[in-house]
């Protein structure tokens, strides 16, 4: 009864019962989007038959958030019959064979050497910024009209078959 009297004697502040400032859900949405693109590149690019067995390897040099995202959501998932394996690379040219290699902006200086290393091999080189196409990337992510898009340079992916679907969705295909 006492509680009831107290309850009715004063207005309970809405503020007391409802904290007003909402929490910001801090995310690197760019990393999430790029990870999803990389997964889709695996589906819309055709690798030679001898690369269709074993794990489907995605190597990541730089781009820590992207790497974390790939590990969290795609490691052990399938592309076709292949299980996805995510590998983190340090700054090195001793890179094992892989299906896709992503080079983050912090390692762009290494891009020409990496491109040279993988020249004429069935490895899709992906990087950030349209200028990287000139340095050997087959696919370059770029920020266009407030969305993450990509350009394709088929000359840098000569050992691979890039599907028409993927080309049709690219901002630019060279």
């Amino acid at each position, binding site marked *: 009864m006492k509680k009831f009297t107290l309850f009715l004697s004063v207005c309970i502040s809405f*503020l007391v*019962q409802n904290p007003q400032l909402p929490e910001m859900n*801090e*995310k690197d949405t760019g990393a999430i*989007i790029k990870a*999803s693109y990389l*997964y889709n590149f695996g589906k819309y690019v055709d690798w030679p038959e001898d690369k269709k067995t074993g794990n489907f390897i995605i190597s990541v040099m730089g781009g820590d958030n992207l790497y974390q995202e790939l590990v969290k*959501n795609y490691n052990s998932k399938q592309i076709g019959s292949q299980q996805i394996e995510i590998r983190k690379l340090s700054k090195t040219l001793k890179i094992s064979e892989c299906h896709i290699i992503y080079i983050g902006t912090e390692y762009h200086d290494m891009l020409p050497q990496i491109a040279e290393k993988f020249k004429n091999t069935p490895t899709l080189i992906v990087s950030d910024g349209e200028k990287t196409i000139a340095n050997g990337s087959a696919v370059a992510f770029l920020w266009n009209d407030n969305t993450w898009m990509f350009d394709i340079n088929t000359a840098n992916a000569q050992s691979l078959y890039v599907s028409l679907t993927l080309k049709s969705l690219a901002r630019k295909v060279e």
Partner: protein
Amino acid sequence: MIRFLTILICIFTLHTLSFGQSVDELVQTAYSLQISGKHDDASTVINKAISAKGGEKNKLAWHVRGFIYKDLFIKNRAQREAGQYRSEAVTSFLKSNELDKDNQLAPQNQKALRFLAVSYFNDASDIIAEHDPDRIEKAEDNYFKYRNIITELNPDTNLVNKDIEYFLAMSTAHRKIYESDRETYDENWNVSNEYMNKVLDLDPTSFKALYAKGVSYYNRGAYNIERMPHVEIYDLMEIQSESMRSIEAAFPFMMRAYEIDSTKVEAVRALKIITFNLNKEEESRYFQDKLEELDGNFKK
């Protein structure tokens, strides 16, 4: 059998008591029943009083009726009919107040009305705190009943701050309902923002409303992107486009909040996150530096 007879005697006594009595006598009878705790019987008699000739204009009859229904409301607080009793009590006290030209009963009427108004306010507050999607709209009804009584008692009362507090709380409640199941309660996201708009109509410089709107747009976009893994590339592009528009929409609200109070860590951190996700590296770095200036805990 004995119980049946007792009821019959009571009915007969009541009928005898009330039949042919004047309004004043009926009021007196109702009051006696009331103080002896027979609220239901008291309500029957007092309703006869106000239906009798002259009863409708009798300020004391309405006054006593108000207390009878107020007690019925308190006694049946947890029951379904409590709302009806409270509503009858309010109507009675207001009517008594209206008829009370010489202010004889006004202090007691007004005290009782304030009590009932507060009960409406607190019910609204409790409903809001429940975050129950099936009940949340009842808070609106309760709050506006509180509001109507207060303005009826004193038309000059400034309720802007209370309204802001209420709209903010409703916005928070709808946002939490949305966050509990974003698919099912997607509409609550819009409702939450509509309440923020009401706050901004009353106070365009409300930091809380501007900040909350910014977070609301950003979180919606970020959430939609976060649930993307394994989607087909067509869906990826569509979801991304829509989500980024939402994140972009967050920016002006958060910027305005920051302009209003640039010392608030929350706003600076939010701007750092929003600009980062809009790929505005320089701006994001700027807000990171600001954040470190304001709070060393945010050092990279």
